[in-house]
């Protein structure tokens, strides 16, 4: 063993790679050719390695056969590369050519294996492995080399006629790989032996095939463009890094071996081990510093992200769109940006285009669109559509989409299983292709773009919302004047206070106080089903209608019956009113009330120092045609210190973030704790507690009323 260990490692690796390539793309002719080439390299690696070792062990017969097999491998490589150069990247069977080449190759196999014309014998010269070349060896090797060079030339000629840039790039990779492999071959088999006089590197000849095979695999798995100059730059850095470390390691190990091995091999081992450790440290330090150099100058990721973050959604669709386009243009470097977004009726249409595309409809139900949605690749480059097998099924349709959008790259925005938008980027002004760096960055910013796309899709709704907001602001004054425009209970013994809070500027809760006579005052606490503008419209109407009814009738029950019929007959279906109607008579300190669905009415009795529920059961208005038979008038006598307290369901049914309901008990305890305070204090502090409890913005209208009867002492 020794140097051949490299061959033994390479052998199985190459075999595995060959199998992998075949397995990955079973029907592809290019894969078969690459697989053949890799198998050839496998023969070279194992043949030269094992042949070399057996030769050195004087097993010349076996060694000769192995070396001959390596020869077979070499020509297999040449032929498969040549054949590949004729058709790659396209899948062409070229039967006639292939058969002729195969026959020729078989003939060469015969010459190598069964005649001494290629390699005639293996022997040891000066104790070193030596391969006795046959009379045709030089010519055959030269022919092989020429075939390889011819392949490179053919590749280059074909490349110059190609339109597709990704194919050009792939061929570039192969050509560079082949050129490099020729270089390696020349180094290993000519320069090192003749210049340095080292003849023992023979087994490393298989590196030629390895470099070639590597470049082929890299080429076929390159779906997206990458900037070849920056790739070369990185490779160069890597090579320099490796060479510096390698040379340092080699020299220091060599010197240690030279001067110490004569003293003691153990000392050499120890010295080498220490050097190994030090070199590891050095390697780490150099690498750390190199990371900085590795960064590309044209990196725009940060600016792009910052730009997207700076988009101000409050400025409206056009501003957001133009900012988005500007940011994409500046950073990615394209002036052609097209945005498709889903309309309110679910169609994907152009919402913006700086590529002068005026009309374009993407049908969401098209098979290829469904396919694009299903494969879950959000960023797609045009170059990739040609090469990546996942697009193969709908290649034509997808390319047509790119053509229609004059795009080189598209980003798909998918919500669930539905495509809600597409951003298409045209070619870069620098004429450079979208590369792997762009791909990485675009994927990274997808969530941010998604938010913007989501916004653009909802822009029509946004404009509605802005209108509503404006309208609500204009109407708030009407609502508030309406809510505040109420009578008061004119009695110095009564302390009445209520609080109305709406989820938005408008709501369906209301409290109305209407003076009926000298001592009688009516109070209505109402909560209309729903919230927001609709509930508030019904609320205003109801409030007005109640006033009108009160002019015609002073009968309590009659009023409620009329309100009920009115809701049922005139207000939109689904309008219901939970309300408490009560009349306070200051002459008797009595409260008559009918509860139609207010969930909580408490009476704090000062005499008993207890809070009792007195809401009873009542029907909500607007359900049944005739409510009169369900109406029950109740009466409460107020004594000094008593508190009548009520809230709508907004308070007791609201939940905290952990899902706990506010409930009645907290209200109950609150009244007991604060019974000596004023109505305003009781109500405000309850609302304070409630706000803390829900943490969030309230999500139902809220009304709290406290009516405290406290007889002023007669002075």
């Amino acid at each position: 063993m020794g140097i051949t260990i490299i061959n033994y490692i390479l052998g199985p690796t190459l075999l595995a790679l060959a199998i992998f390539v075949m397995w990955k793309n079973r029907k592809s002719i290019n894969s078969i050719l690459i697989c053949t080439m890799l198998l050839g390299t496998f023969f070279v690696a194992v043949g030269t390695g094992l042949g070399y070792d057996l030769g050195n062990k004087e097993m010349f017969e076996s060694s000769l056969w192995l070396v001959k097999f390596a020869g077979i491998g070499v020509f297999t490589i040449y032929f498969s590369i040549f054949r590949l150069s004729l058709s790659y990247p396209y899948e062409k069977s070229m039967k006639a050519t292939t058969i002729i080449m195969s026959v020729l190759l078989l003939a060469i196999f015969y010459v190598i294996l069964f005649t001494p014309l290629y390699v005639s014998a293996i022997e040891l010269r000066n104790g070193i492995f030596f391969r006795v070349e046959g009379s045709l060896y030089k010519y055959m090797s030269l022919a092989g080399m020429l075939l390889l060079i011819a392949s490179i030339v053919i590749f280059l000629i074909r490349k110059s006629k190609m339109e597709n840039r990704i194919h050009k790039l792939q061929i570039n990779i192969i050509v560079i790989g082949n050129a490099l492999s020729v270089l390696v071959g020349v180094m290993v088999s000519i320069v090192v032996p003749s210049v340095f006089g080292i003849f023992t590197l023979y087994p490393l000849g298989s590196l030629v095939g390895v470099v070639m095979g590597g470049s082929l695999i890299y080429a076929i798995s390159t779906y997206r463009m990458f900037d070849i100059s920056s790739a070369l730059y990185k490779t160069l850095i890597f090579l320099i890094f490796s060479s510096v470390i390698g040379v340092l390691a080699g020299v220091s190990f060599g010197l240690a071996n030279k001067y110490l091995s004569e003293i003691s091999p153990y000392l050499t081992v120890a010295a080498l081990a220490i050097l190994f450790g030090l070199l590891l440290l050095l390697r780490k330090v150099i690498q750390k510093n190199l990371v900085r150099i590795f960064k590309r100058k044209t990196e725009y990721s940060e600016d792009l992200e910052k730009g997207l973050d700076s988009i101000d959604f409050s400025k409206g669709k056009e501003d957001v769109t133009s900012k988005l386009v500007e940011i994409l243009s500046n950073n990615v470097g394209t002036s052609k940006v097209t945005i498709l977004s889903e309309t309110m009726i679910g169609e994907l249409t152009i919402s913006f285009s700086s590529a002068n595309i005026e009309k374009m409809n993407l049908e969401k139900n098209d098979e290829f669109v469904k396919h694009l949605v299903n494969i879950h690749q959000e960023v797609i480059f045009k170059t990739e559509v040609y090469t990546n097998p996942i697009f193969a099924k709908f290649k034509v349709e997808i390319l047509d989409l790119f053509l229609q959008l004059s795009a080189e790259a598209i980003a798909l925005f998918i919500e669930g299983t539905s495509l809600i938008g597409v951003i298409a980027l045209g070619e870069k002004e620098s004429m450079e292709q979208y590369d792997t760096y762009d791909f990485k960055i675009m994927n990274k910013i997808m969530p941010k773009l998604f938010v913007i796309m989501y916004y653009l899709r909802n822009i029509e709704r946004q404009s509605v919302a802005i209108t509503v907001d404006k309208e609500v602001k204009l109407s708030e004054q009407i609502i508030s004047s309406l809510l505040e425009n109420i009578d008061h209970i004119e009695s110095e013994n009564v302390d009445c206070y209520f609080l109305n809070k709406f989820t938005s500027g408008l709501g369906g809760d209301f409290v109305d106080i209407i003076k009926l006579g000298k001592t009688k005052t009516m109070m209505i606490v109402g909560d209309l089903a729903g919230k927001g503008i609709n509930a508030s419209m019904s609320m205003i109407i109801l409030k007005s209608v109640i006033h009108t009814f009160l002019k015609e009738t002073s009968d309590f029950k009659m009023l409620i019956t009329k309100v009920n019929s009115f809701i049922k007959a005139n207000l939109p279906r689904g309008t219901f009113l939970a309300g408490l109607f009560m009349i306070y008579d200051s002459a008797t300190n009595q409260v008559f009330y009918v509860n139609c669905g207010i969930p909580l009415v408490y009476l704090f009795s000062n005499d008993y120092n207890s809070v009792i529920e007195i809401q009873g059961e009542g029907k909500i208005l607007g359900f049944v045609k005739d409510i009169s038979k369900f109406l029950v008038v109740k009466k409460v006598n107020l004594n000094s210190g008593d508190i009548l307290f009520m809230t709508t369901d907004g308070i007791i049914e609201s939940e905290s973030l952990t899902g706990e309901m506010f409930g009645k008990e907290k209200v109950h305890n609150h009244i007991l704790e604060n019974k000596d305070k004023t109505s305003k204090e009781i109500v405000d502090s309850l609302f304070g507690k409630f706000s803390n409890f829900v943490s969030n913005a309230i999500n139902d209208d809220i009304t709290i009323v406290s009516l405290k009867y406290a007889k002023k002492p007669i002075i």
Partner: protein
Amino acid sequence: MGVAMYRVLKKVYLFILAVIFAISFAFFVVWLFRDQSFLYFAIISGISFLIVSYVFVLLRRAIYKALYKKYVLSGFNQRIFNFYDKIKVSFSINDFVNITHDILEDEADFSVLWLNTKNNSSIYNTLSSTITSNSANIKILIEKYTDLDEGIYYMDKDFVLTEYNKNPKSVVFSISGYLLFIFSHYLSVFDRHLFKNVYEEFHAYLMRVDMIEKMFSLSAISKEWALLAETQQSFLPTTLPEIKGLNAHVFYEAFGNVGGDFYDIIKISENKTLFLMGDVSGKGLSAALIMGVIVNTIKIIENKEDLLSIITGVDSAVKTMGFDGKFTALFTGLFDTQTKKMEYINSGIPEPWVVSDGVFKILSTNCPLLGIIDLGEVQSDTIQLKNGDLILLSTDGVTEVENDQGEMLGDSQKFRDVVLKHVKETPQEIADFIIDVVKHFNKHGKLRDDIALMAIKVEE
């Protein structure tokens, strides 16, 4: 003590690995190649070093990863890991609070305080902890850190910012106006890298939730708005009653989603029919709200033959509600199909016309606008009509449309010409022609107001 163990073991394993690699490398190189020339030895050992050192780096990485998983992503740290893993699938405040509660509080025994510095409120706080349930503390923290730059900070027990390695008692995440405090006595046992992950996920979560909430409310508002238009439509008649001796047609279009114009044709008795045409001052929602009140007030007025009671009812409804500065114009006409007489009160509807024998008569205003000033004494007028007469009632959206020369439609000859030209046709055709003129009267073809037009023809 997972993280400390991890750090120690990292060093131990690194040392062992380096020793094994160094000795075996040195041993093999010396054993295999020591008799070779200097150059050969240097090349082979140099290349071998590159390969072996690369393998070494790979192995070291694998070992670190395994150690990290075993010691950092386990025990205490596992909980933090679980936490930020779950943030990824949080889409609402409730989701976030639930995982905070389940993982940070219940499993890891942290107390958590989440503040919104934009409105100085606490979104969530752990109630079982004395630190986070104390409102004084919350106040102090809000005051102290409202303007904290975005980032991760550590705080000691006195709420003073400190370093991670100085035994902090709390980690603070400050992101776009939100402050998330996580308190623990054992904060230093948790790996700070995990806090970085929490920060990033929390940030992404806030962005996500913000957008989701906005989108959600957008769609809710647009639904509500559409519903309001439906509600308003429901206050207007969907079909006009069939009345012998009358043929009527109404065109109505709100300028926005909703408007303040309203109309109705109500058959009161066998011979009596009531026409209503109204226009609330202003446009949009505010006008629509008042329109709702007025229409419904009229509906509940029992004696609709008494025009005065309708007028006073509406007037009083608007006044009682105290709508600031809002008023309405209203035309009420009571037509008797037998006598062909129409009793009417016109409170400010501009130019209701009667076209009779090719002559335009204007039913002038005989009552002030409703809801704003004292009505004083109002008396209705009566007009005798005959078969073939045309009554045109419209709001100012029709009559006050201006052309580019500033001329109003109601004053223009063009309008009269169109009406006279088509006067023999059906009310619907007449209305359509008029609306066509309205829409093209100015060159922009844009409406600036609600439009309501009622065309009624007296017939046999």
